[in-house]
């Protein structure tokens, strides 16, 4: 049986947390199959000690193709580099994060490799007897779970939502090999030119990678009232989310929108404030670990899904919570 691979991601020479989350998934699969787990990195500027961290967090091997010409994600080039590695090593499984780049690179690569690909898996397991990868994913807005396998094609490819698994603790005693593979420049695709990034002035959020998301809906009544949501999020070290109603009213920018036509998140904690819990919004939060709802309507659909619900006026409840958290902070100091 061949290796299990997970794709690491980097930005400006820093490994993204999803790289480690994937390794904990990959570790479980590689142990069951008794094969090596490999972290594959395509990018630039990740130094030796950071590459070591991939081993300390579960990898047996690291294959790193790094070059300044790979510093930005360009699907066609990355797909050619990855495709070459797949041809050479023929991994049995390839996992990537369901990020903007993972969700672009994986389908592109799957076509070229004639491989099956399952999106947004929440559970991965190995089938007894066959050793096939069992890939379970939510479908129809999270209302059903479908288990999928790819019996006759290799690699078996899947994307996994960020934050849907926890990284393994760092273990400095783990050993492994780091293979640095030089970029073959004939693989560079010159068609796409990346010119840079633009960030929203104040708070550009990476909702999908946040551990805690505090979201507001139409119940907040106006843009200024998102101030208290932001403050609560800051206190808890979380990011701010919003419903489509709130985004369409211009209270928050589209990057904050959660749901069917926005982002899908799997944080440790989601708090919905003044949000009714429409099916299209729920589609984006169903895989959260903990769901809290604050809504004055006892019959709000979000209350029914919540681990903890407060039936009350957000303009009283949120400040009362904030007061306690502030007090706690002061006492800690």
């Amino acid at each position, binding site marked *: 049986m061949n290796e299990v691979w997970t794709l690491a991601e980097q*930005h400006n020479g820093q490994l*993204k947390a999803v790289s480690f989350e994937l390794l904990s998934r990959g570790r479980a699969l590689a142990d069951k199959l008794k094969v090596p787990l490999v972290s594959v990195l395509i990018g630039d500027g990740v130094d030796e000690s950071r590459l070591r961290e991939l081993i300390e967090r579960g990898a047996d091997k690291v294959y790193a193709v790094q070059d300044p010409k790979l510093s930005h994600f360009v*699907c066609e080039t990355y*797909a050619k580099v990855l495709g070459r590695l797949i041809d050479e090593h023929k991994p049995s499984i390839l996992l990537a994060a369901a*990020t*903007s*780049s993972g*969700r*672009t690179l994986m*389908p*592109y690569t*799957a*076509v070229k490799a*004639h*491989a099956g*690909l399952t*999106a*947004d898996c929440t559970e991965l397991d190995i089938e007894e007897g066959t050793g096939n990868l*069992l890939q379970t994913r939510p*479908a*129809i*807005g999270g*209302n*059903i779970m*479908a288990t*999928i*396998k*790819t019996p006759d094609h290799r690699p078996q490819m899947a994307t996994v939502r960020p934050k849907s698994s926890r990284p393994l603790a760092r273990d400095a005693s783990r050993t492994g090999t780091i293979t640095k593979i030089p970029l073959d420049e004939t693989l560079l695709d010159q*068609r*796409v*030119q990346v010119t*840079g*990034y*633009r*960030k*929203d002035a104040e708070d550009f959020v990476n909702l*999908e990678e946040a551990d*805690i998301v505090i979201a507001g809906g139409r119940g907040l009544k106006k843009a200024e009232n998102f101030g208290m949501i932001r403050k609560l999020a800051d206190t808890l070290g979380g990011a701010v989310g919003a419903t489509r109603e709130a985004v369409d009213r211009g209270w928050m920018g*589209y*990057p904050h*929108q959660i749901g*069917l*036509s926005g982002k899908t998140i799997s944080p440790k*904690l989601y708090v919905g404030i003044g949000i009714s819990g429409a*099916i*299209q919004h729920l589609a984006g939060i169903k895989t959260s670990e*903990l769901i809290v709802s604050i809504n004055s309507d*006892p019959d709000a659909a979000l209350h029914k*899904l*919540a*681990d*903890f*619900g*407060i*039936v*009350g006026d957000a303009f009283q409840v949120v400040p*009362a919570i904030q*007061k*306690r*958290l502030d007090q706690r902070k002061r006492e800690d100091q």
Partner: protein
Amino acid sequence: MKILIPIKQVPESSNVKMDPETGTVIRSGLESVVNPLDLYALETAIRLKESCGAELTAISMGPPQAMKVLKEAVAMGCDHGVLISDRKFGGADTWATSYTLSQAIRKLGDFDLIIAGERATDGDTAQVGPAIAAWLDVPVATYVSKISEVKDSRIYLERLVEEGYQMLSMPFPCLITVVKEIAVPRLPTLKGKIRSRDMEIPVFTSENMDLNPDFLGLKGSPTKVVRINTPKVTRSGKIVQAGDDESLNAAADEFVVFLEEKGIL
């Protein structure tokens, strides 16, 4: 400029009802609509037609009823529609779907730009767009939130990614997938509806397309569905009231305890 817009017919989701017994979606009686996220692709194409001049063709693979979404695309402002329909295409996963769509696109001849939706609300994979680009060997940009410029056979774009908005440009022919932020979709016009009603929409089948029979439908799909489950609701679901001052304080206290117990604080 020739623009193709792959659109999918999906069950209407805003009126989705859940079966309280089984926790599954009640599918019967659901109306089929254009995938709501494909409306942004259609709108983007129509705006490009208005600003730079373009010929727009909406294409959809699905059962004969999918004709309806093509008519709607025409009613919004597309020039043509093409239905890709055959029993042999049924049960296709994203690999086989994108193969069949890409062969239909080859049959249509040269194009400059393909604009797909970010994802379909039923399959919800966001894979078909980039996969079509791979079959056709054209560059792809996903999550496009803005088209800044079209100049000298290149398109200048912004993509919404984790780090912010990535700015890039690509030459035609190429494929983009768009997010909601790009434009507000218009409604079909009466004139458009009349035009679409009388319009002949060609149907591509396995008979009149150049296809590898091993790449079609359920049989040609690398992925196989093993089983479907309804997720167990494991939420403990504690609900507290915060009405008067006393219950408000109690609720806020309990919330803090909840965060502590769950290891958040």
